[in-house]
């Protein structure tokens, strides 16, 4: 069976830049450009990069019941934020495991949910099924929206001459609307790299013009490979690796987005309350290998002589120069400094639990 892969509006640009294109979430996307993942990773940590993440999904929720609806389908508390705020949250199953993680954008008159490309269809189906009698309108606007992430310590300086609004005024996890390169867009101070930066939502047909303006101002194109190594160094969860339909946010160390006391039940709240009461049986931890090796997703993790889990996320940290990863361990093995082993292609390599984030020197401004 041949799968027809979709393209973002920037496909021709990626190919012209010498990108290595791969299949990702039904799209043909750049995993790296000509200079390679390590150079792209360095550019984001030290300068500024731009990512085409137009494959992400966006759902719009309007209508008078929108806040109550989002509070029922997502575990964080949308009542705790106001218009202009962005919130990290998750859409869960009744058993308290992930359908997807998401960001919630609150506006005066609507809410936008941003979901992973790979989960867009599944999340949409789930959300629509919860609509029932509520007075809301749901719209999947993913195909109408282009999304560019501009990340790095110089992100604000590079965007500033192009911005029709005050970028300084946009706080961490805040958003506003206005013009970039004379194109209307929503812009938030958010990202997935640990560096300062912005995510810019535009009309799909404006994506190319914005990309050209921002790369012209000095942002370097960055592919999915460096996107993964950058987020791994920050310990940010990736659906399909660190979180999935078998893992709860309490196990994943994301208890801070689970608001059991927000005053309303949500899908998964009963299961999470029960899990909280009895205590989790495993915890997502960060680790480093103590000898040379690369822990890759799926490699067996051995604790106390038995397989405890697999490597969830893993790789060589370009910024730290050491092999790092995440895995789910029983609480007895999950303390900082605890030792276990990773089976790297038949060779048992000792590993040690370390604090996340692995990388603590990023320019992200949490203000």
């Amino acid at each position, binding site marked *: 069976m041949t799968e027809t892969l979709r393209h973002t509006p920037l496909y021709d640009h990626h190919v012209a830049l010498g990108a290595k294109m791969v299949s990702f979430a039904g799209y043909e996307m750049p995993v790296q450009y000509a200079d390679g993942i390590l150079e792209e990773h360095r550019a984001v940590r030290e300068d500024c990069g731009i990512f085409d993440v137009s494959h992400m999904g966006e759902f719009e929720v309007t209508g008078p019941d929108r806040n109550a609806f989002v509070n029922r389908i997502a575990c964080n508390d949308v009542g705790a934020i106001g218009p202009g705020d962005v919130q990290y949250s998750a859409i869960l199953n009744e058993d308290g495991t992930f359908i997807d993680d998401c960001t919630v954008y609150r506006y005066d008159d609507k809410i936008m949910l941003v979901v992973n490309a790979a989960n867009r269809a599944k999340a949409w189906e789930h959300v629509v099924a919860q609509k029932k009698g509520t007075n809301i309108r749901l719209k999947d606007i993913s195909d109408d929206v282009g999304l560019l992430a501009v990340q790095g310590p110089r992100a604000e300086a590079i965007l500033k001459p192009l911005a029709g609004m005050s970028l300084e005024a946009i706080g961490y996890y805040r958003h506003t609307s206005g013009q970039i390169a004379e194109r209307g867009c929503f812009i938030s101070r958010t990202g997935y790299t640990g560096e300062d930066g912005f995510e810019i939502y535009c009309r799909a047909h404006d994506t190319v013009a914005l990309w050209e303006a921002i790369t012209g101002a000095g942002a370097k194109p960055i592919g999915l490979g460096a996107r993964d190594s950058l987020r791994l160094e920050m310990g940010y969860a990736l659906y399909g690796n660190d979180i999935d339909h078998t893992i709860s946010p309490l196990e994943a160390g994301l208890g801070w987005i689970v608001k059991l006391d927000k005053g309303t039940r949500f899908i998964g709240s009963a299961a999470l309350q029960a899990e909280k009461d009895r205590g989790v049986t495993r915890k997502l931890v960060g680790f480093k290998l103590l000898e040379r090796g*690369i822990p890759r997703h799926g490699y067996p993790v051995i604790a106390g002589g038995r397989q405890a889990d697999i490597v969830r996320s893993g790789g060589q940290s370009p910024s730290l120069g050491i092999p790092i990863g995440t895995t789910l361990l029983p609480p007895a093995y999950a303390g900082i400094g605890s030792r276990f082993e990773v089976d790297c292609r038949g060779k048992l390599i000792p590993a040690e639990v370390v604090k996340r984030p692995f990388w603590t020197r990023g320019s992200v401004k949490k203000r």
Partner: protein
Amino acid sequence: MSNVPDDLRYTNDHEYVQLTDDPDVVNIGVTDYAQGELGDVVFLNLPSPGDTFEAHQAFGTIEAVKAVADLYAPVAGEVVEINGDLDADPALVNTDPYGAGWMIRLQVDNPSDLEGLMSPDDYRAHIGE
């Protein structure tokens, strides 16, 4: 287009074999095409001098950021030297695969085995170039 030098021999597994002044000794590494497909190399696991391998036997691994690949002996022989520079600078495999990025020097058991390797034209066809 990948660089496929005319003075080398090649394998299906994207290793190259470079003849030396000694007819029994060859240098082995991976091709420009292979390093391009693998991307940034992080480190290599290479054998030790004195280790012997049959043809097609794995002699080491190459770990890149996004992938890991086995390295296969193109012909039977004994390792006489490894490229120690790759320990400190594995990116030499990316930047100079046919020069400073060579991996092992092999004393071949039967020099006539080398005739069974791919020609540059065969290898270009193998990688579709």
